[in-house]
């Protein structure tokens, strides 16, 4: 049903970051006649624009690019399609029913408007967990900011956010910012990580901390912040046991800035508002093998679904989602059996959470993260008592996304659900 006067697109992509750009390219390639990308910032590219370090594109482009270069290539690809892009435009809500999808948005130039869509692809990315969310006690002065906000100030706006820096959390953005601030002449005094292992990529530990002699305190956390004249003066760091600070282990670091890299949260306010089912483990929508959510015609990809380690994998997922959205807009509907995918021992979550074997082609890809660093391990896929497949790994880490490919023929025997679990045979 198309409302009178409401402009209609085959596919509307919400978000013009890496996921949105790839989804738009892919939707056009798959034959979508009209595609609209809606970006809230002034330019497309999303968070890649502030990721001026290199290391992007090794999988997809087979070369090493910076974030802006990677984004630039996709922006160029989108320009060569029939997709329209609007920037500085915020989507306020999505109304999705079985046979109609309406996206309302606003911008300074064009005001408030609504668009109809054959299919919608959610590509809103994620946000950073804050000091408030993890309740770091102490004073609340200036100089405490998330690593991503600091990265924007430094890399986009050209401002220094401090001179003596302590980083809480060893997520990738925190590690990258440790190196970045050092190169800008600041002293990074410590990186403090709650877990007994880092949550970042190993290459970032080596290239961003070790190369600059920045100490990494594993199994430690910040248990206090003091202020002087309105700005951070010091932090108290404590050793932890099972996440709880151990009394008597405190030490103080004098600093003027605390950067937080303590986790990313998929940004699903629009998704929730549209009544789309959310997975408690990922904080993202539950999706099928083709990245369609449980609401027909609404697809999702990238960090809005689950937080990825590499942008290349975001691209691959978005290509899948964009193509499926184009097919949905053209009238394709998938019927038939649905298999539920569950995370078992050692598996924090899986994406997708549902597989329709009839739509999986020759094989289904399943992504997940494990809950702790592991040595030699076996990833098992089972259905009830039946073993369906197993995959060996030399090592596994929570900082890295795992991918397994389950041949469709093997799924044929699954009854209702499959479980992915990890069994470790060697030391981490």
């Amino acid at each position, binding site marked *: 049903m198309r409302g009178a006067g409401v402009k209609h697109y085959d596919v509307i992509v919400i978000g013009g970051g890496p996921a949105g750009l790839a989804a738009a390219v892919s939707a056009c390639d798959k034959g979508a006649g009209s595609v609209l990308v809606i970006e*809230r910032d002034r330019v497309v590219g999303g968070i890649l624009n502030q990721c001026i370090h290199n290391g992007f594109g090794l999988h997809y482009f087979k070369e090493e690019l910076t974030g802006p270069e990677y984004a630039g290539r996709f922006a160029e690809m989108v320009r060569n399609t029939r997709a329209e892009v609007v920037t500085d435009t915020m989507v306020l809500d999505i109304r999705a029913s079985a046979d109609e999808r309406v996206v309302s948005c606003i911008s300074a130039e064009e005001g*408030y408007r609504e668009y109809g869509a054959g299919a919608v692809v959610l590509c809103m990315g994620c*946000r950073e967990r804050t000091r408030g*969310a993890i309740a770091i006690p102490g004073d609340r002065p*200036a100089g405490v900011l998330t690593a991503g906000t600091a990265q924007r100030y430094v890399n986009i706006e*050209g*401002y220094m956010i401090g001179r003596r820096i302590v980083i809480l959390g060893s997520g990738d953005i925190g590690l990258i910012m440790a190196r970045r601030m050092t190169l800008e002449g600041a002293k990074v005094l410590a990186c403090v990580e709650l877990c007994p292992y880092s949550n970042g990529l190993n290459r970032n530990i080596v290239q961003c901390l070790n190369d600059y002699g920045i100490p990494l305190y594993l199994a430690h956390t910040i248990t206090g912040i003091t202020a002087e004249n309105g700005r951070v003066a010091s932090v108290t760091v404590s050793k932890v046991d099972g996440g709880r600070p151990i009394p008597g282990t405190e030490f103080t670091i004098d600093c003027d800035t605390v950067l937080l890299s303590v986790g990313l949260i998929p940004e699903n306010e629009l998704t929730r508002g549209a009544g789309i089912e959310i997975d408690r483990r990922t904080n993202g929508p539950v999706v099928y093998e083709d990245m369609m959510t449980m609401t027909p015609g609404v697809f999702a990809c990238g960090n809005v679904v689950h937080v990825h380690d590499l942008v290349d994998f975001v691209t691959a997922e978005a290509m899948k989602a964009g193509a499926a959205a184009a097919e949905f807009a053209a009238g394709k509907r998938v019927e038939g059996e649905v298999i539920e995918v569950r995370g078992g021992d050692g598996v924090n979550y899986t994406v997708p959470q549902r597989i329709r074997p009839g739509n999986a082609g020759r094989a289904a890809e399943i992504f997940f993260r494990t809950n702790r660093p592991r040595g030699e391990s076996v990833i098992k896929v089972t259905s009830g008592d039946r073993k369906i497949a197993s995959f060996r790994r030399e090592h596994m880490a929570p900082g890295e996304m795992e991918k397994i490919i389950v041949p469709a023929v093997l799924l044929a025997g699954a009854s209702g659900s499959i479980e992915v679990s990890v069994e470790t045979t060697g030391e981490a």
Partner: protein
Amino acid sequence: MYDVIIIGCGVTGAAVAYQLARYDLRVGIVERFSDVACGATKANSAIMHAGYDPAPGKVMTPLNLRGIRLGKEIARKLDVEYRPLQSLVIAFSERDMETVRTLYERGLANGVNVKILDREQVHAAEPSLNPDVIGALWTDDSAIINPWEYATAMAEVAVLNGAELFLEHKVTGIVRDGDALTVVTDRGEFRTRYVVNAAGCHAADIMRMVGDDRLTQTNFQGQYFVLDKAEGAKVNSVIFGCPDEKGFKGILVSPTVHGNLIVGPNSDPVASAETLGTDAATLDRIKASGLRYVPSINFRNVIRQYAGVRPTTNVKDFVIDVSPACGRMINLASMASPGLSAAAAVGERAAELLAGAGLELRPRASFSDSRPPVVRFASLDAEGRRAVIEKNPLYGRIICRCETVTEGEIVDAINRPIRPRTLDAVKRRCRAGMGRCQGGFCSPRVHEILARELGVKMEDIRLTEEDSFIITGKTKE
């Protein structure tokens, strides 16, 4: 020469200024912080208490009762975020029920619409409660309010009617000077016929400056959690535990006017009124109490903590009088809870006391009891949104995505009668940065807009007080 200098622009000082604005007076307000409403006014439970709590005969009791009636009217007139909301004092035991009955009697004596609910009734009234709750005191004479907007709105009306506001002026002394007083601050002196002491936690210090040493400030801090709107939607009442033997109202769970949930406060002595840090043990205790009242609160959805220090003194009541040590000074001291609820009535009372002390109150012919309207984009419907964007395209640019705050609202906020100078002050005016990402995405943009509108450098913008600069310079310097 000023007719009146008001010391402090929290909700009490603002209410006095608002009241005096209707008279033909020269009024100055000196405030030590960089914005109005920055002391106890910005860090409390944001509740307009129904008035069952204070015992008949106390100074605070009639002021509480009149204050909430006036406050409701002011909130309507000045478009302050305000929501009538039932409140419950819940009982887990027979001993608690004794307290509930005492409060009920007190409520009746004070003319409050109170009821005692039994187990069945209380769970019907508030389905989110712990099943172990056996009864409660109920009233619907209570409300929740945006406390800093309430104070700011009253101060704005005062300023629009000629009051002069001096921010970042800390009073260091008061000198008697014939028929006048000189209020000495760290940034200049103010000669005035009368002084109103609305200095909150520092009211006792101000009293001592004229030789009145009746009061000693006792610093009782309260810490709070703020939770996401998903949690705010779980309750439909202000939920108090039973007050303890010291009269502390106990930890409460309440929605805010913005739809968030707050859980807190504790009441423990701290070193000074400036001790606003939180600590893990206290936060754990508050969390446990909150979960005891409402087991379904998901503390994974916490977005912030804050703390305030109460303006409590050795006197367990408001101290409102013409200073026995100085006939030209009106004290509004010891304004702890229900200070917010009572504020508007305290403002009226201050005017009466000034008149009694010899100040002539001639109505100001030009008095206008209004302030510029506030556009709240997030609460407009599609038509309303279209209309405001048509008027000003900046309402079409969302800056704070979590709270749906537009550039137009931020620019409006910066150009209001009392200009915010810091990121936190902008946040208090229009909520930019108050949502779940806590300004992670929008603070650099709000920062830029604030610098642009104030015509200052990015480096000169502060987060809050003192030298709370957000950036320390340019890169490559």
